[in-house]
């Protein structure tokens, strides 16, 4: 009946009369043990990241369950400041303290959606349909409104009837790639949150 390690045995005996009496009364002592709670991060994976809020860009440590192997759904369960980071040295502010709730916000988007013209609500669609419809919109507008030369005959190769606004919280890599793509399409109507 008793399934205890030596260490737990010592704890139980140290607890003395109480546990012994429970056992005598026929209760298994196992669930009643006042065992020290396991350190919750002991089985987690630690990942180094950067707080996305202000431009102090504090180092953070993400702790997730799951070992990141294929078919394992990892879940971040704790975030704290990275003590190695020379700027924040392990601290986080009240904004950063809520990072876990931002990642797990009920307002996170989970599926592509469309709101059709005049409709009162969203409709879920797949990525395939989303990419396809958006690409067709872009092509139709670009083909109809692309300007090869201006009135003076100068080659200008611009498209200014579709605009792009980019985040200041996305990575350099996605900011750069988006810039490359839109200039490749001839877009001049582009701006970033960074202006504001």
């Amino acid at each position, binding site marked *: 009946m008793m399934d205890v390690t030596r260490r737990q045995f010592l704890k139980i005996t140290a607890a003395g009369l109480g546990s012994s009496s429970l056992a005598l009364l026929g209760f298994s002592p196992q669930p009643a043990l006042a065992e020290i709670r396991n350190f919750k991060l002991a089985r987690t994976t630690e990942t180094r990241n950067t707080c996305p809020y202000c431009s102090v860009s504090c180092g953070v440590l993400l702790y997730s369950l799951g070992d990141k192997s294929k078919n394992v759904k990892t879940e971040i369960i704790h975030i704290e400041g990275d003590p190695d980071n020379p700027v924040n040295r392990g601290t986080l502010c009240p904004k950063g303290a809520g990072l876990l709730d931002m990642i797990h916000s009920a307002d996170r988007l989970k599926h592509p959606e469309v709101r059709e013209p005049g409709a009162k609500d969203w409709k879920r669609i797949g990525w395939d349909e989303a990419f396809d419809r958006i690409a067709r919109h872009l092509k139709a507008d670009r083909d109809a409104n692309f300007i090869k030369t201006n009135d003076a005959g100068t080659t200008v190769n611009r498209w200014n009837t579709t605009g792009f606004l980019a985040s200041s919280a996305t990575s*350099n890599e996605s900011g750069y790639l988006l810039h490359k793509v839109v*200039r490749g399409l001839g877009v001049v109507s582009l701006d970033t949150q*960074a202006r504001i």
Partner: protein
Amino acid sequence: MTNHWVDIKNADLILIMGGNAAEAHPCGFKWVMEAKATRKAKLVVVDPRFTRSAAVSDFYAPIRPGTDIAFLGGVINYLLSNDKIHHEYVKAYTNASFLIHEGFAFTDGLFSGYDEAKRSYDQASWQYQVDGQGFAQVDDTLQNPQCALQILKRHYARYTPEAVSQVTGTPQADFLKICEFIADTSAPNRTMTICYALGWTHHTVGTQNIRTMAIIQLLLGNMGMAGGGVNALRGHANVQGLTDQGFYTEMLPGYLGSPSDSDKTREEYLAKRTPKPVRPNQMNYGQNFPKWHTSLMKAWFGGAATAENGFCYDWLPKKEAAYDVLALFEQMDRGRMNGFFCQGFNPQASVPHKAKVDGALAKLKFLVVIDPLATETAEFWKNHGELNDAKPETIQTEVFRLPATCFAEQDGTFTNSSRVIQWHWKGADGPGESLSDLDIIAGVFVRLRALYAKDGGAFPEPVLNLAWPYRIPHQPSPEEIAMEISGKALADVPDPKDATKVLAKAGEQLAGFAQLRDDGSTAAGNWIYCGMWSQAGNLTARRDPSDPTGLGQSHNWGFAWPANRRILYNRASCDAAGKPWDPGRAVIKWDGTKWTGNDIPDMRPDARPEEGVMPFIMNQEGVARLFGVERMLDGPLPEHYEPFETPLGLNPMHPNNPLAVSNPAARIYPGVMESLGKADEFPHVATTYRLVEHFHFWTKHAVLNAITQPEQFVEIGEELAREKGIGNGHRVRVRSKRGQILAVAVVTKRVRSFSVNGRKVHMVGIPFHWGFRGATRPSHLVNELTPFIGDANIQTPEFKAFLVNIEPA
């Protein structure tokens, strides 16, 4: 930031003005407290509100929103008239001695060259006097009335303590006390750092606010020094990075200007942007522009970009007009745009005048929103009662909402405010079917490219030939892109000093931008990031925090652009002979054969001091500009202009010139003047700001933050509260000419009235965080109130000073 977060600990004086680091950048602000604790540094705060930064300051002074130039102009006058400047520094390292064109004038609030109809300046009279070789003429005695220092003196002589107080509402004694604090750092071995943020940028004179401070730091000799500099404490974790990637209509990556219609050929484009020498012996580093631009074109168009076709110069779109975010919404509102993408951008919450933004979005054919969160903008068409009173059946815009992963769910780099590029690693997958921004961009592009390949269409060449060397075309990896940004050799790059040596072999990652070439033999997506991923690997992922310099430089933590340099202009931390102004905080020094020390020298390493190569290497003249001979559209010297919604109705500095009330060079779209309120109907000055518990419009989606600050409130002073019969916790209605919001009133001593130009002006403080989506109580967006007008140079909206009225709801 010219300097960096940890470097704040090296300052003797910290001025926080136009920002509130204690609440907006708390973990960076710790270094202010470190300076106070270990260096006995002083903290001075100037702000319309008694903020938490003010609460721990050594001295605080209030200022009316939108009058920073008047205050700082007064500081310039104090420094010059009390001889509290760093003479050797000013004479050697600034354009103080440079002679300005005889035609330059400043008359009743307007600089020479003003065109009232165009609301712009002809800058011909703002230039240097040049000799036959095209070199600027100087007067080393600094006595010539046309030299920049004398012009500066004359210009700011008007900014007396009396005038400052009359405009700003800052009590004269407080102003003078702060002048004394600042003047103390004119000693060569004393430094001040200035930390500012949106409090300076969100004005129609935003750029000039910062220019005024730059002039002060130059007069004091604080640029290039440890513990000095002009430090913009920026917004998002990668706002610096997006700025660097140049995602602006007027830029290409790395601050390369984008072409416009007047740049007909590559040669004309390059010639206009490759600066000619203005003084002998200077580095004029901008002369390398063709190398940076050619390397960019090779990164974008790969093998298609050849010397024969001008490296595809014609494929780059040329712009003929403004396309900044205000211009985009203006065009949209006029029905001239059909499609629009908002990637991680929530314009209803970030662009002024919500009613106008709503109307503009409703005219689109399609809108694509890419975001991790449910933003207001994605639902601009949806009825949220009075908070967003839309009629969906009348709005024909097709709206796509695509789920993106967030920071924790992707690899890549962010660049912090002090230019340090840091790699971060993915901790988990995003929820549901969310994809990374990279995958979404590539997903759309690959489809579009396939359509052009199959069906043809308008000018398909750049679409079909855009360099796309990614292993999985619809999923480019962050590593692939980071390496492309940093740059590689396409052919062997020989050493120009020794033809037998090769600096980089074909296919190798480049060590730095000095290896870039203009013949197509190198590719780099962003020249200033060149070297972040070298043959040594991904330097942005370095995590060695050690700091043998003692200055907090941590050169082996991440990679700072440019060239891993942590303090910009650090050559100016030494005297002309190369000896540090303050040996106790030496950044670099001349050791007899080379520049060396505690940072990557911002100077050619072998430039002997006697060669006279000056520290501001990105300026043709090698020195910094007290007098702004180019780039500033609204004047070579900052001047006080009122916010466009002024409580005074006139500019006390120019009371008789209606053209000089507000910035004469700010762009005004038709209809905007009519949308501005007057003080008789809207007598109170409103200013917007952020709270320590929230980050812009994101954290309202996070439960913990929503609990700490659940609902829109506004702050007013006790006097106004009494006058209006408003008590603490009462519901109030705040109205501007453009709209209204409902809020809870917080009556506080931290907000006060100002005595300005002989009258009393009350302020209404409006935190800027809530909306009709999120975990907080549904609220109006504050942009119901804000004016649709921006800074004259860069069009950042005037969120910090406008007019409202307030009443019990």
